[in-house]
């Protein structure tokens, strides 16, 4: 006896894990940490031309408590790093991080004493985007990478 005959029509069966992955990966709301010119490309990413709404990421949450992925867009000074880490710590788990552009990934052309040489010095970065600044397509690509990552990892921790 198959399950659909038990439950009748209009039902399907799946695992809770797959359902949660499906939900999470299609509503990755970004926390915009716009620090420099990359932020302009990040805005274009959310705007109508590139239309991040196709991937469920159009809602820029300006509160860390409502967001899932932090996009660090631009170069980060030592002074700013404390504020970024504070915002990051306020984001609820599970959370992901995108280092957007050369400066956020490695320090880029700002090779000097006041700029952190890559935000991975104090944040767990999941996806790095190259470019100076990257085009909005690259940011969409990064969001898709994050979605792949969400679908691959286990969303539930079961206490056996």
């Amino acid at each position, binding site marked *: 006896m198959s399950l659909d005959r038990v439950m009748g029509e209009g039902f399907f069966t799946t695992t809770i894990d797959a359902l949660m992955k499906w939900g999470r990966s299609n509503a990755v709301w970004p926390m915009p940490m716009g620090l420099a010119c990359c932020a302009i490309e990040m805005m274009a990413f959310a705007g109508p031309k590139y239309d991040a709404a196709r991937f469920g990421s159009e809602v820029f949450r300006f509160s860390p408590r409502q967001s899932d992925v932090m996009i660090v867009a631009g170069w980060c000074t030592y002074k700013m790093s404390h504020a970024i*880490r504070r915002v990051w710590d306020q984001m609820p788990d599970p959370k992901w991080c995108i280092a957007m552009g050369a400066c956020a990934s490695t320090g880029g052309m700002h090779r000097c*004493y006041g700029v952190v040489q890559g935000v991975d010095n*104090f944040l767990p970065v999941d996806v790095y985007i190259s470019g100076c600044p990257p085009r909005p397509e690259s940011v969409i690509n990064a969001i898709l990478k994050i979605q792949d990552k969400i679908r691959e990892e286990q969303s539930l921790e079961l206490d056996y």
Partner: protein
Amino acid sequence: MKSDITASLLQQIRNFLGNDLYDIYEEYPYPLIRINTDRLHETCRFLKEKLHFIYLNDVFGTDRFTSEDRFEVIYHLISLRDQQRFFLKVYVDEESPTLPTVTDIWKSANWNEREVYDMFGIRFHGHPDLRRMFLPEDFKYFPLRKEFPLLGVPGSLELPNTTPDHE
């Protein structure tokens, strides 16, 4: 080609300073002079009160990296009446890098002098609030000096704690 206003300006400066006017750099489009450090304050007062340079645009330092007269501080002045720019330059020694403040003449010099102190360690005698401008107050180095390493001294600027409070 220098205008008549510039020429008369330089003549008045020459009359005021005499032998304490060390150099006039002719190759620049705006008048740039170097004067005796001891007469900096009274020259600034003269420039403001007699020659109407009421607007101090900028104060900045440079490190020449020479054994004597290592630093120089440059004052960028503007006369709105004459539509004229003017640059004034003094040399500062490395042993005791101290200059008289000009905050009593132009109030806008306050933050500019703090920045020069922050970057080069040049102290301004008589400044009302000589603290660091951009860097933390316990920072021990002066980053625009030539001997300061490009990427800074490791550990001198703090990174945030990467362990959240609840873990």
